[in-house]
């Protein structure tokens, strides 16, 4: 018995296993999920799918997570959508500053289900 959706979350990761993992986690938390297998797809789907939250991996080929966010933040429609960055290194926060963007949160890999849930709750509160 599914309850009313809590909203739509776009998940982007070029590692299929992690894309599945995060997507399943987010679905279990009561959201509809849009899956993007790379940065270009993420850009495309973020524009058409009108998600309420973005969960973006940093290191994706061609268009990385920061680039996706930077381009979306320049667009009127997507400006306000909060973004959670999946990252593997602390240095990414510096990289984000170099990009001139400020993600709303970071999730260091690996992460627990509880930590992911807490971050999502915080961003959509």
């Amino acid at each position, binding site marked *: 018995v599914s309850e009313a959706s809590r909203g739509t979350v776009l998940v982007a990761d070029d590692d299929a*296993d*992690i894309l599945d*993992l995060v997507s399943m*986690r987010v679905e279990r938390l009561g959201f509809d999920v849009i899956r993007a297998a790379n940065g270009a797809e993420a850009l495309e789907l973020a524009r058409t799918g009108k998600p309420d939250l973005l969960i973006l991996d940093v290191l994706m080929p061609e268009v990385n997570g920061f680039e996706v966010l930077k381009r979306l933040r320049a667009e009127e429609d997507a400006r306000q959508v909060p973004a959670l960055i999946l990252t*593997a*290194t602390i*240095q990414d926060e510096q990289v984000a500053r170099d990009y001139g963007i400020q993600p709303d949160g970071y999730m260091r*890999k*690996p992460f627990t*289900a509880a930590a992911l849930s807490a971050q999502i709750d915080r961003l959509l509160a």
Partner: protein
Amino acid sequence: MADQDKHGGAGGEEARVRSILTSAHDAYISMDVEGRITEWNPAAERTFGWTSDQVLGKTVADTLIPPAMREAHWSGLRRFLETGGGPLLGRPVEVTALRRDGTEIPIEITITAMPNGERWDFHAFARDISGRHRRDRHRAAQQAVAETLAESVDAEQAMERVLPALCTTLGWEFGEFWVAHGPEGRFECRATWQAPGLELEEFERTTRELELGPDEGLVGYVQRSGRIAWLRDFGDEVDLPRAALARRQGVRGAVAVPLRRDGDVVGVIGLLSTEIRPEDPEVTEVLAAVALQAGEFIGRRLAEEEAERVKDEFFSLISHELRTPLTSILGYTELLVEAEGEELSDQARRFVEVIERNARRELRLVIDLLLLTRIEAGTFRVAIEAIDLAAIVREAAEVARPLAERAGITLEVEIGDVPVAAGDLERLGQVVDNLLSNAIKFTPRGGRVSLRLERVGERVVIEVADTGIGVPDAAVEHLFDRLFRTEEAERLQIQGTGLGLTIVKAIVDAHDGDIEVESAEGEGMVIRIALPLLSENGRSRALSRQSEDATR
């Protein structure tokens, strides 16, 4: 024309004096008690631009003294006539003089008063010292730049500071620092400076956003030619990218200086003014000297920073590659237990627990190794912020508790009331994790590990004490050496790499903290870490360390 026989000499003597004054290199001027000019030699003509015919009989005040100082001149003369003394008499003094063309120049002048019958005559020798002033200024500019470079910790800071140092000493109102950027050798503006009171915000903003290729603008020209280039009036050169803006904002004179290292132009300094600036060969020389110093410094720092960036990128990639599979292993393990729940047999549950525990162990190893690599490569940084140490300690205790339980060790945690500290959340978590896992590892079954957090004076102290095997006195000083393992640890075949404490030490050092160890063989160990509280002072000190290498 007070040409009386004042020195009492014969006509021959007077002719001799006159010829000396005529050929003198210094300007000679004499003045009567009414303040009128009575003598004016050729050097005075050259220095001030007036011929003697034009000035004899006129007042010194109207001829030589800038309007703002005329009143002082007259009152000085009156005072002398009343008292017979004056502060400017009989010694060389530096004052500002007015030339015929309206410009003001610094002069050094020596005035003497000589009685002439009932009256007084004033004689003055003066010389234009603007050259000396200019040379002083030029020396000051070079010195200021040298000091600035010596004090800067990185290229960014050096660029920010060189501009005001150059502009204020050489009298320019706007400075910009360009450096090569990217593979196509385009130049981007990395620092700007404008004199207080100037309203060049738009010009500054546009400049900061500009990128110039090798053929674009004065910067591109200088980059290609490798030579200093002057622009008398920037706004007149319609081809330049910022010409229209310069005209609108009143920016006029400009000079661009290439900075070279090993023959390549690595940067360009631009100086701009709201006045027209004809080329000045002396300033060109100063700028060339400055360019030599700054080019070497900035070029080297930029190259180092680029190398560091490449290393950083590589470590980020490695980190990503190592963490990604662990993310899947740990994530799916958690998901499996959650999804299958009741369905899992006790045995399956135990197997999953083994997978998870070992994945975590591997994760810790990966984190330690990556950190160690960064330390060795000199790219280890801490990101200092206001942190809640109590939360960090509590979390580390949560993670360690199952390990302690498995090892049959009692874990005691005592968290006192501590204020906000300055630190790197993640790295300090790693410190406490490492200390606890070490303590648990080296404590036999039935032992006790206690973790305490408390405030001691102006510091916060994290203490981990155990009842484990301890280390002999001689080994204490080696505990933080890389790969150090005690003989006892080897004999007991306790797992470990000998990296944990090395990392702890590096992180604590980067926080300006201290580590204290108490131990005796067979009698356990106490490790105490003291970290500074978050004070304004402590914070800025800690922050400044971010840019330094935290190697030990």
